[in-house]
């Protein structure tokens, strides 16, 4: 291809990228109607530290009405390895639920544009809890505080308004006593589907805390050339079936392929090191079916 054509393509790509960026900025600046920033994304409390805090910030240009409430919801999976988080707002009866023990102050706040609010958390667990970890979800619900009812243009008009409401759910973990992090990989398999390697893993948490770690996966060919890789943050509370789709580059590779899976509690950058409970490492090599 002539150099001029390549430059034209590059220039076209640059203009397209600039246009996209400008359009996105305009969209973003013009009409942000709801939303909130929440930090951190997981809160750890313990028998020696029964208070905590989260910070809320309003990144929009309109005031936000924010409500904080508690729920219970663990990552669960279906038979296909899809992971979801189902929140239960009522009393769950789950022996690991901490949602009834924790309170937030304040629970309702109106954040001005650009405003911040610290929400303090206090937990009062029952006495004689067995060692381990107990869980709740902190749900931050936000919406435009300016009112929700639109006006019709005239007596005969029909106008509409959809209010965009956001619920951000972060995990709260209360820990007590001796803590053990241990994961068992009960079954694992991998198969090739076109240019995707599908890895299916069944995991069981054998410790008394949730296993938090990183799941690394690499696809190798006959000559040990890496043709695909993946890395996800992993949290296993009880049982979890997890599917990972790894796009691979088949060109210039030699079958048979295999997948190396490594699960480790090392390397998480989203959790402060003092809050990480070091767990076991699992390494497994899977031949493609």
């Amino acid at each position, binding site marked *: 291809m002539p150099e001029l054509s390549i430059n034209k393509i590059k220039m076209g790509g640059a203009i397209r990228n600039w246009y*996209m*960026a400008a*359009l*996105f900025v305009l*969209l*973003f600046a*013009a*009409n*942000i*109607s709801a*939303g*909130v*920033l*929440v*930090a*951190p*994304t*997981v809160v750890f409390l313990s028998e020696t530290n029964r208070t905590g805090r989260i*910070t809320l910030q309003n*990144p*929009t240009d309109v005031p936000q009405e924010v409500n904080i409430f508690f729920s219970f*919801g663990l*990552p669960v999976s279906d038979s296909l390895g*899809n*992971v*979801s*988080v189902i*929140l239960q707002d009522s009393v769950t009866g789950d022996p690991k639920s901490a949602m009834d023990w924790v309170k937030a102050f304040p629970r309702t706040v109106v954040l001005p544009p650009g405003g911040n609010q610290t929400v303090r958390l206090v937990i009062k667990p029952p006495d004689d809890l067995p060692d381990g970890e107990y869980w709740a*979800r902190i749900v931050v619900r936000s*919406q435009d505080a300016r009112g*929700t*009812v*639109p*006006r*019709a*243009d005239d*007596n005969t008009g*029909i*106008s*509409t*308004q*959809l*209010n*965009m*409401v*956001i*619920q*951000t*759910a*972060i*995990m709260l973990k209360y820990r007590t006593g001796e803590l053990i992090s241990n994961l068992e990989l009960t079954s694992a398999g991998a198969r090739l589907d076109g240019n995707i390697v599908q890895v299916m893993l069944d995991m069981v948490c054998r410790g008394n805390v949730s296993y*938090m770690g990183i799941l690394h996966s690499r696809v190798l060919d006959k000559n040990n050339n890496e043709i695909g890789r993946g890395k*996800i*943050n*992993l*949290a296993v509370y009880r049982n979890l079936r997890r*599917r990972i*789709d790894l796009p691979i580059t088949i060109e210039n590779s030699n079958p048979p392929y295999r997948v190396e899976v490594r699960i480790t509690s090392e390397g998480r*950058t*989203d959790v402060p090191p003092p809050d990480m409970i070091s767990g076991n490492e699992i390494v497994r090599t899977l031949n493609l079916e």
Partner: protein
Amino acid sequence: MKSLRALRLSRKIMMLTGTILILSFGFSLAQDAATGSATATVQTIITVTATQALAFGNVFQGVSKTVGDNVDASSGIFTITGQAGAGVNLQMILPDYMALADGSDRMTITFSTTDAAVDTNGATPSTVVAGDGWVDQNPRVLPAAAVVGAANTAIYLGGKVTPTSDQAAGAYSADIVLLVAYDGT
């Protein structure tokens, strides 16, 4: 020729001197800073915003109106910013109808099984393609494998309202709720 060499040499000397001065200044700053102490805690964040509400605007009796998930000006847009690559669980709670404030009349609103797209690649409603994430998705069952993109993740939403031929005039509203949770913590 000789003067050119001399000029280059003098430039090199000036650059070297400048570098030494800058380094020494930085070092002295570092020494000053070392006498004090400061701590900072870096926290991970998650930010979810409704960048744009799904907008049908004014509608007419007996005339349904559809807004696709590919319309820059009127599709609903949610944006999620956080740790790039982190898995997020997305659930949308969608209304079956919009209502007048006094509840005296309702208008049907529907969402098809292809009314949503999830974009992890910084596209827009009108430009997002399958390679950017997921297109033609059921908004009630958003992709389980969604992640936070390098810049952000956006969800685009369309829908349809169906006023009846005797729909009461007035202002109709409803809530669309997006629930976002990390699935890796």
